[in-house]
């Protein structure tokens, strides 16, 4: 489903060009739960941003679900993100002035749905993450784990095939992290979502079926493993 061919991405900092992804080739099949691992600066988050259509590659091809993201304009990428991908970030990235259900409803504003349908979808997504009873709380009134579960509800409310998570447990305690990882495993095993998760944490990566190791913008190795169940440790 995800194919990267000879992808190069670099940034300019202080007059110097820093190559973050260096002619990278990678394929992630449909329905995989893939953990991207590597030291800081290895290009994990940059790779996630390119696969999520948040940024453009300097060269190479990024194909997701048969769509060539490298040939799309910014507006086309925005439209594609709205329908095809859900994001979960380390800092949760909920809009602080909106309640949980309003945050979850946001992506649905771009879908051809009535107000009633949007509300039903959002409530269902919050129910899936076990937070329907907190739907009128603002992010500031929720714990970190609850905020991240709201973010997961927002990521899946449009029913995208692909969910991208950037250090989703980085700001969470072990218990909350287990809950979030358990949710992601359910999305993968029960709803057949393809999940690509960036993480530094081997314990989090253990929940994925595929480990992709990056270093200095290059693919080091790919490992297949039997994922541990959430709460097993």
């Amino acid at each position, binding site marked *: 489903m995800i194919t990267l061919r000879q992808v190069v991405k670099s940034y300019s900092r202080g007059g110097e060009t820093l190559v973050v992804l260096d002619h990278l080739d990678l394929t992630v099949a449909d329905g995989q739960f893939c953990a991207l691992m590597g030291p800081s600066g290895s290009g994990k988050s940059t790779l996630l941003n390119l696969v999520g259509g948040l940024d453009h590659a300097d060269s190479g091809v990024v194909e997701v679900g048969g769509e060539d993201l490298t040939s799309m304009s910014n507006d086309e990428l925005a439209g594609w993100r709205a329908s095809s991908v859900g994001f979960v970030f380390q800092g949760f990235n909920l809009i*602080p*002035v909106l309640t949980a259900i309003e945050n979850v409803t946001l992506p649905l504003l771009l879908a051809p749905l009535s107000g009633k349908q949007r509300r039903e979808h959002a409530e269902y997504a919050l129910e899936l993450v076990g937070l329907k009873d907190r739907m009128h709380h603002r992010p500031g009134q929720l714990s970190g784990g609850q905020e991240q579960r709201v973010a997961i509800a927002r990521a899946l409310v449009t029913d995208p095939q692909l969910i991208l998570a950037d250090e989703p447990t980085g700001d969470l305690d072990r218990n909350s992290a287990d809950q979030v990882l358990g949710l992601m495993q359910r999305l993968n095993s029960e709803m057949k979502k393809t999940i690509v998760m960036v993480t530094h944490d081997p314990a989090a990566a253990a929940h994925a079926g595929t480990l992709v190791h990056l270093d200095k913008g290059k693919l080091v190795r790919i490992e297949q493993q039997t994922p541990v169940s959430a709460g097993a440790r």
Partner: protein
Amino acid sequence: MVPFRVIWRNLFGHPVRSLLTAASLVVAMFLLCVLRSLVVTLDAGVTEARTDRLVVQSAASLFVTLPENYRGKVAAVEGVKHVCSWTWFGAYYQRRENFFAQFSTDQDTLLAMYPEMEIVAGDYERFRLNRNSCIVGEALVKSYGFKLGDKVPLIGTFIQRLDGQPWEFEVAAVYRSKAGTLDSGTLFFHHEFLKKAREEKLCTGEEGVNTYVVKVADGNDPITVASRIDSLFENGPQKVQTTTEAEFNAQFVSMIGNIPFFLSAIGSGVLFAIVMAVVNTMLMASREQTRAVGILKALGFTSTTVFLVFLLQAITLSLLGGGTGVALALATSDALRDALGTTFPNYVVSHDTVVVGLIVTVVVGLIAGLVPALKLAKLNPVNALRAEQ
């Protein structure tokens, strides 16, 4: 689709700051509307002047009186329908600070000459038939409490009774002015009354009248009629200058100096200051909402939508404050007119002023929101998501 809830909630993300900005907009737009209304009131004599009225004055100066017998001669000119004299009386009521305009006039033609004069109390006919009577504008009734039948004592300044007593006029009717060409803070009495007092040597002051106002008959060109009148007195005994009502009234606006310009300059200063204040608020808001913009973009909202979200936020804030200020100016229009008394008896916050106020409000929002909205719209979502929240 624009997420209006985000706009609304962002507005009150910092309620104290938003309310203070809105409050400053309330004050600024209220002041702007009041200042504009004062300028409009000052200019109304010119902008609302009728084209079918001419004013005949001495060619030498407005302060040189015209002979009494010119009335009949002007009335006989081809194209003239009515003639009505106006003579400045310049007295005060009880105390010098109670000063308002008084004119002696021709009671038979005054009402026909000024269709904008509406009698709202009493009887014009009673005024017409009683030489010692007067009619007063609504503003005088509000300022001094004049009632029908009251005898208004006026103490002359340059037209004084020789016996040292005040002049007295009985209030026969009250009028309302429906246009800026007629002041509702004026007292009119019979010119015949003044003429007789002068003939009988009961008072000081020169004989004659200050101006003759001419109503041009339908189908006649006012400029041609004005030329005929001027030609009639070309060889004296007193040369005249006939102008349109607008030209005549413009003399008075220029006499009071650059007050309209001064008021407009104050208004512009207020506007500039408030634009700076709202720009500052929106710049702070744009910094705080950078990450939220990143979130919206990551969710699939386009740069155009992000631009609209921020611009509408600025315009909504501006409308909340500015709109309230405009509404306040409109709501206090009558109370302010009463408070201004005979200084601005025709003060009113017009619909034009309301429309201008609302347009200015929207433009303030546009100016304040445009640059930060463009900046946010152009942001790369990855960079926006890295911003501090």
